[in-house]
């Protein structure tokens, strides 16, 4: 048997996550809640970058849009959190879909810049549309209450985040192992071939952006409730790099990797508090080291050493032996 299979390990983590709060202090609960929120972000981003292969830099902006929408619907329109929160997620999804429109025409580095430009424009709007967004100073969100339930806000929010993360983890896992997930990987591995097989590039790129936006939006809503505060600087370059490194450390193109990556990066960020002032160096170095030495992320290392970690989508391990037949290949100039 495989006691440390992917399924068992994830279930054990879940069990710990459910059982731990009564034993944890406010600080641990806060960090645990952050982890759970970042799990959502990392899964969403991994679908876009790891699976669909789109080099997009707008995830922090979509996270921000989710947080702002959830917060502002409460503050400006007086909606309850329970209405504002899902609406915020759908707004982020709609924005994700909208920025995917240029993505059909753009690829690679051009797409990277267009999403970077979008992120800059979003920051600008957060900063300057003061009548709505309260500008650079940000705003406090109304305190969240789980009123009829006998549960405090930090604990309630933690369990809400956890439930959503588990649900959306399952959704993502099903999705990537399906017809849709394969189409995304096909778009990543070869756009022309994917099209020749009837896969509509725009549709699937838009889908990846939309799903990613939805996950970021959910995460944003939870984040605004966790902090009770929304301001532009939370959704900046550092945020973007943070999320990117989660999927790199966990493993590009792996849902379980996104979970591991989010957990590790957030815990590491907390642990790095000890490296007074050296955070940037350690963090940057970590990114380089992972890209250099563990390109498949932690998941690929685990896959190599522990049985039972195959992804639902039978993603390839680079170490697999090539087929015996060796063939005379002619270098093709047409193939860049």
């Amino acid at each position, binding site marked *: 048997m495989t006691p440390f299979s992917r399924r068992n390990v994830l279930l054990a983590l879940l069990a710990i996550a459910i059982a731990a709060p009564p034993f944890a202090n406010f600080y641990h609960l806060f960090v645990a809640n952050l982890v759970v929120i970042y799990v959502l972000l990392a899964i969403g981003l991994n679908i876009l970058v790891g699976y669909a292969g789109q080099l997009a830099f707008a995830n922090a902006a979509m996270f921000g849009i989710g947080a702002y929408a959830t917060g502002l619907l409460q503050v400006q329109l007086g909606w309850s959190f329970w209405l504002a929160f899902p609406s915020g997620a759908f707004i982020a999804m709609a924005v994700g879909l909208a920025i995917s429109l240029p993505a059909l025409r753009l690829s690679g*580095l051009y797409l990277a810049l267009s999403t970077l430009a*979008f992120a800059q424009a979003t920051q600008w709007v957060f900063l300057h549309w003061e009548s709505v967004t309260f500008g650079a100073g940000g705003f406090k969100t109304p305190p969240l209450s789980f009123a009829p339930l006998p549960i405090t806000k930090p604990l309630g929010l933690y369990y809400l985040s956890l439930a959503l993360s588990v649900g959306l983890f399952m959704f993502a896992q099903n999705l990537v192992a399906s017809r849709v997930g394969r189409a995304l990987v096909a778009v990543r591995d070869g756009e022309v071939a994917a099209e020749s097989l009837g896969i509509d590039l725009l549709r699937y790129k838009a889908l990846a952006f939309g799903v990613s936006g939805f996950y970021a939006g959910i995460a944003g809503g939870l984040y605004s409730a966790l902090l009770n505060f929304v301001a532009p600087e939370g959704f900046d370059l550092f945020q973007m790099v943070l999320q990117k490194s989660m999927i790199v450390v966990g493993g590009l193109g792996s849902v379980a990797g996104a979970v591991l990556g989010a957990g590790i990066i957030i815990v590491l960020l907390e642990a790095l508090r000890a490296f007074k*002032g050296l955070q940037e*160096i350690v963090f*940057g170095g970590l990114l*380089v080291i992972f890209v250099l030495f563990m390109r498949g992320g932690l998941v690929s290392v685990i896959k190599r050493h522990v049985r039972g970690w195959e992804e639902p989508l039978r993603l390839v391990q680079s170490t697999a032996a090539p087929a015996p037949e060796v063939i005379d290949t002619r270098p093709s100039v047409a193939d860049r």
Partner: protein
Amino acid sequence: MLLLSYLVMSGVTTGALYALIALGIVVVNKATGIINFAQGEFFMFSGFVAWMLHVQMGVNYPLTFLLAAVVGFGLGCLTDRIAFRPIAKTDVVSLVLATVGIAFMLKGLARVIWGGKADYLSFPPITSTDPMMIGNVMVIPQQLAVLAGTVAIVVIFTAFFRLTRAGKMMQATADNARAATLVGIRTDRIYTLAFGTGAAIAAAAAVLTAPLTLLYPDIGFAFFVKGFAAAVLGGLMSLPGAVLGGLIVGVVESLAGGYIHSSVMEVSPFVVIMIVLVLRPTGLLSFNKIRRV
């Protein structure tokens, strides 16, 4: 009319700086096909090194310029050795993220080394500080020095690519890496050379503009984003395109600031770029390549 000439003049001088950053980005992209996110940090770091040489150690300006370029070149080569060459065959996402990691490390390092100096470091001007008149537009001589430096750097690098063996090999590698390998070009050396020259351009830009823009560890990213935008406007592959892109970004900013409001200055180039990319997805100066399958 005077307003316009002032705004254009200021846009052009700022744009020249963006153009230099864009040049570095394009040189690296031409050879390797990736965007070096650490380009802005090369600029920052070499600027600090130049400050140390010139202000703290009293090295004269021309020598500082030279030494900073050498340090920049070394920094670029090191980046290639550490974070590009070992993984050159992997996906673009990983490669780009590795340069992001380098950028963070350089930023952190600069903060540790120079951050305790409390504030924004100033670099003494190399030219007279008295404004001078060109027609009826007043300019600071240092701005003209930046412009002249930009022109010189563009000329030097264009000549490098057209005339020297190394330049031609870089060009060939950019056009078709596999074919270049087949004719015996050591492409890994070309990559090193590209990172090195890209960083050297950033260093030259830093020494030229340091007297205008104070030095601080976070100066890199803002310049990088503008430079990246400029490079994309120019089509990512063309040196003249990068210069044109830089000037456009600078002038757009300046005009938007002067005629609309200063609050739209920062965002204006990005709006322009999003429009350009939607209309012309491969930049202004590149003709559509035939998609090969």
